[in-house]
C-alpha cells in the first residue's frame, strides 16, 4: 500500500509523464476516435479528397479540441449540471468562430474549399464527447493533453484517407498548398511518368487515375479498410453486433 501512495505522489510532479503520454498515444491507435469510438465521422469525410484541406481541417480540430477541453476543465466546477451542454456548445462555437476567421484571413482558397465543414466542427462529436467524458472530470492540463491527443487521432485518419485518395485519384500530393507534389501521371512533370518509354518508369504504364477515389464514397471504403486492418491485428477490438 505504501508503494502505491508513493507513486501517486511522484506522478504529480512531471508535467509530461507516463500518463500524459498514454493520453496522446491511446487515441492515435487503440482508441481512435474515428475507427474505434466512431465519433466525429460526420463533419470531415467530404474534405478528404485532397491532402491539403484534410491537413488544415485536422489542425483546426486539434486546436478546437485541445482548447475547448482546457476551458471546459477550468470552468468545470462552476458549470451547473443542467445547462452544461449549452455551455460546452458555446465554448466550442466560440473557438470554431476564431478558426473560421483565421482561415478566412490567412488561407482564403482552402477556407472556400472547406466551406461549411469548418462550422461543422461545432457538432463534431469527438469535441463534445471528450468534454463530456474527460474534461468535466479532470484537471485542466490533463484535459488539454487529452483533447490534443483525440484531435491528433482524428487528424491522423483524416490525413491518411486524404493521402490515399489524392494519390490514386489525382496522382498529386498537397495540391493547392503551394508545395504541389506531382506524383504520378501521363507527362514529364510528374515524378513517375506513365508515358515514359524507357527506364524503370515504364513499369507504371498501366496506371490511370481512379475517378472513384475522387467521389465521396471512396472515403468510406478507405476507412473500412483501415478498420479492417486495425481489427485484424488486434482481435480485442472486434465488436460482435
Amino acid at each position: 500500500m505504501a508503494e502505491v501512495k508513493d507513486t501517486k505522489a511522484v506522478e504529480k510532479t512531471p508535467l509530461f509523464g507516463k500518463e500524459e503520454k498514454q493520453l496522446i498515444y491511446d487515441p492515435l491507435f487503440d482508441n481512435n476516435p474515428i475507427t474505434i469510438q466512431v465519433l466525429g465521422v460526420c463533419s470531415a469525410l467530404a474534405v478528404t479528397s485532397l491532402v491539403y484541406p484534410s491537413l488544415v481541417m485536422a489542425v483546426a480540430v486539434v486546436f478546437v479540441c485541445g482548447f475547448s477541453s482546457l476551458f471546459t476543465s477550468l470552468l468545470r466546477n462552476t458549470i451547473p449540471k443542467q445547462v452544461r451542454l449549452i455551455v460546452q456548445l458555446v465554448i466550442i462555437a466560440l473557438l470554431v468562430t476564431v478558426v473560421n476567421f483565421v482561415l478566412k484571413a490567412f488561407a482564403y482558397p482552402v477556407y472556400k474549399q472547406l466551406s461549411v465543414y469548418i462550422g461543422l466542427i461545432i457538432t463534431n462529436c469527438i469535441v463534445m464527447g471528450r468534454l463530456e467524458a474527460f474534461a468535466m472530470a479532470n484537471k485542466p492540463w490533463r484535459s488539454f493533453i487529452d483533447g490534443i491527443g483525440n484531435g491528433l487521432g482524428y487528424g491522423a485518419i483524416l490525413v491518411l484517407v486524404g493521402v490515399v485518395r489524392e494519390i490514386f485519384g489525382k496522382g498529386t500530393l498537397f495540391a493547392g498548398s503551394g508545395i504541389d507534389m506531382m506524383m504520378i501521371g501521363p507527362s514529364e512533370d510528374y515524378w513517375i511518368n506513365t508515358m515514359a518509354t524507357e527506364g524503370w518508369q515504364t513499369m507504371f504504364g498501366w496506371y490511370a487515375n481512379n475517378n472513384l477515389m475522387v467521389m465521396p464514397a471512396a472515403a468510406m471504403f478507405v476507412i473500412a479498410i483501415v478498420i479492417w486492418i486495425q481489427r485484424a491485428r488486434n482481435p480485442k477490438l472486434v465488436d460482435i453486433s
Partner: protein
Amino acid sequence: MGELINVFIESAFIENLVLAYFLGMCSYLAVSKSLNTAFGLGLAVIFVLGITMPINWLINEYLLVPIELEFLRFILFIAVIASMVQLVEMVVEKYSPGLYAALGIFLPLITVNCAILGGSLFMVSREYTLPESVAFGLGGGFGWFLAIIAIAAIREKIRYSNVPPALRGLGMAFLITGLMGLAFMALMGIDPAVIAGPQ
C-alpha cells in the same frame, strides 16, 4: 412551386445529406442497428430540420445581416437548434405522448447531429429564400430518413451473413454506406426540372 419541388428533390436524392455530404454520420452509424429505432430517429430529423431551417433563416436575414453580426452565426445557430430541440421535445411530450414515446429518446441526440447545423449553414452559403429553405429542410430530412432506413434494413439482414470477423459491425457499415453512396450517384441523372413540370 416548381422551384420548391426542385429544391426538395435535389436535397433528398441528388445531394443526399448522408451519402453525398456525410452529415449526421455519427448517429447514422450508431442508431442504424435496428429498423425500428432508425425509423424513429429518421422522423425526428425530418421534424427538427423542417422547423429549425426557417427559424435560422429568419434570424440570419432579419437579425444578423442588418446589424452586421454575421460572426455570431455559429453560436446563434447552434443555440437556436439546441433550444428548438428542447422546445419540440416539451411540446411533443405535452400534446402527443404517442409520438413522444417514439421520438423521445432521440430528440436530445439531434442537437449534435451535424445534418441539422449543416443544413442551416448550406442554406446561408447557397442563399436560399424562406420557402426554399423550408423545402430544403424537409427534403434534406427526408433524404436522411431514407438513408438511415435503408442501411438499418441492410444491417439487419447482414447479421446472418458470413462476414470476416474484423469487418463485422462497423467495417461493414462503412462499406455499405460507400456502396449506397455510389448507388445514389446514379440519381444524379435526374433532372429536377422535368419532374417539377413547366414553370
